[in-house]
């Protein structure tokens, strides 16, 4: 059997496989070094970072919902400087491809954080979080406006040669139009989806389950919507798409890729099973062998819409 090629390229970032750990779901990566060899992942996306340290929201910060979970962590984080001094050297040692998820409350903060990270050694790409639904100042005002998206991405584009990957919100009428704005602004790829703005109520106490009242819905519940958005964006832009939302096994990875994603991120599933990574790789390998596919990239956008799948084949 010929060697199986699962590689993905996003600008200067070359990954051996399309499996990335999603931001906010994998700490700073190092938390997981005991359970998975970080170098075997396509990439590790850090928790969202502002310029300064942040404490985040009070508990309760998560709540489980049917096939999903709400979170309103509020971007607790160590800030970009401590990240560079404390985490980056260790991530380099472990040969992790490190994508930093960056946040800002102002355009200037985004640019500043991007600039600082571009000067640091060991950052492989920047994911621009303009889509966190949980904090008012978390860039969502950029992510929900086409002009805002365009201006953040083009401002960051000017100060870095790193791959720039804006992460889009699903909480808009047409994510594809945001994909277009991002591509026009010079993005190397787009990530989607961030979480869906949602809430849950404890009816006995008549209070919200989250201290922040609303939070972001992730997990398999959202997968069918996320896949649809990836598919729509695939028709709209040419740049790579990093798809995510509820991936729980290798079939879900393939679903996103066939819909049009070049790479994927796994978030919530990692909580359920931190040993998922090897299983995903095995599943992809098996699929490629069974279907005699040597380049996984050939599957990207390969959906055949001429007829539906046979239900009872």
């Amino acid at each position, binding site marked *: 059997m010929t060697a199986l090629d699962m590689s993905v390229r996003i600008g200067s970032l070359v990954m051996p496989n399309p499996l990335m750990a999603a931001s906010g779901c994998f*700490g700073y990566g190092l938390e997981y070094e005991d359970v998975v060899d970080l170098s075997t992942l396509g990439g590790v996306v850090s928790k969202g970072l502002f310029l300064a340290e942040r404490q985040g929201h009070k508990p309760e910060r998560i709540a*489980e919902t049917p096939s999903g979970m709400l979170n309103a962590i509020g971007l607790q984080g160590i800030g970009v400087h401590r990240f560079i001094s404390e985490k980056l050297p260790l991530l380099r040692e472990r040969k992790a491809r490190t994508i930093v998820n960056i946040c800002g409350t102002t355009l200037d903060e985004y640019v500043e954080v991007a600039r600082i990270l571009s000067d640091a050694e060991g950052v492989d790409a920047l994911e621009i979080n303009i889509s966190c639904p949980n904090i008012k100042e978390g860039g969502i005002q950029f992510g929900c406006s086409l002009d805002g998206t365009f201006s953040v991405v083009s401002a960051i584009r000017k100060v870095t040669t790193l791959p720039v990957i804006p992460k889009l919100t699903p909480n808009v009428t047409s994510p594809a139009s945001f994909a277009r704005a991002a591509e026009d602004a010079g993005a190397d790829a787009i990530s989607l989806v961030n979480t869906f703005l949602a809430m849950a109520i404890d009816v006995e106490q008549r209070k919200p389950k989250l201290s922040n009242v609303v939070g972001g819905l992730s997990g398999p519940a959202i997968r069918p919507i996320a896949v649809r958005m990836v598919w729509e964006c695939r028709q709209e832009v040419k740049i790579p798409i990093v798809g995510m939302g509820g991936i729980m096994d290798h079939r879900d990875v393939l679903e996103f890729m066939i819909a049009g994603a070049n790479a994927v991120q796994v978030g919530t599933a990692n909580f*359920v099973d931190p040993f998922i990574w090897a299983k995903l790789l095995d599943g992809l390998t098996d699929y490629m062998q069974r279907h005699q596919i040597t380049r996984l990239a050939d599957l990207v956008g390969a959906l055949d819409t001429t007829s539906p799948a046979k239900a009872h084949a």
Partner: protein
Amino acid sequence: MPPVDVRATVISNVRLSRDYNVLTIAAPEVGALTEPGQFVMLKTTDASDPMLRRPFSVFEVLRDDLGTVRAISILNKRAGRTTGLIYGLEAGDPVWCLGPLGLPFNPPSSGAAWMVAGGVGLAPFATLAEALVALQVPTTLFYGARTADELYYLEFFDRLGVTLVLTTEDGGAGVQGRVTGPLEESLKGLGGPNLVTIYACGPEPMLAAVARLAERYGQPSEVSMERTMGCGLGGCYSCVVPVKHADGETRYVRSCIGGPVFDGATVVWE
């Protein structure tokens, strides 16, 4: 030691009452690594509803006659969905068990150990008591429950040589009232600071009261905190506890990796 994930089989499920049960599962790989105070993350289905695992203290590490670890048990109290499912499990059912996780209790820094348990907070003390007894540390268990029926495993602790001080809210056994009552009495009787190490597990108001009493009487305390946990490995930041740091600042610490056991003097009680 890195945790392991085992699809374990239920060996037995002993229902102690309408809400409490002891679930024994064949997860020797986990048991062999577990230190007192550590926990596991359990799931009763591989479907996505319910989806997330739930944290449980390792109650017993069960060995065969040759001392080889064969199983672990969990002292479970029904509180919601997963604890309800765990209550209903039968021998042969699968359970997904990830662990051991978290920081264990530290050995006592003083001559005696007092364990303070409220309700299901008894869970981490079976293994801790065994370890303390093996270290020949004189050990007392202050144990409070609502009623006499809900005081479990007394014989187990008795057999180990642990001194039992019991309380019930209705006075059905031991002293009537909260467990902090007799604890304070005993603290008053101590000759000075740093004579006992206090270990506590139970509802948060109890932990806060114990930590304050320990501080007032100059004894070190370790509290095992209960938080909603999404991952158990430091990935999600759901489980934070506000902790006063050496620099005087209060910061949120992830209790799954910076706990669940905390120095009672550093926790900022809300």
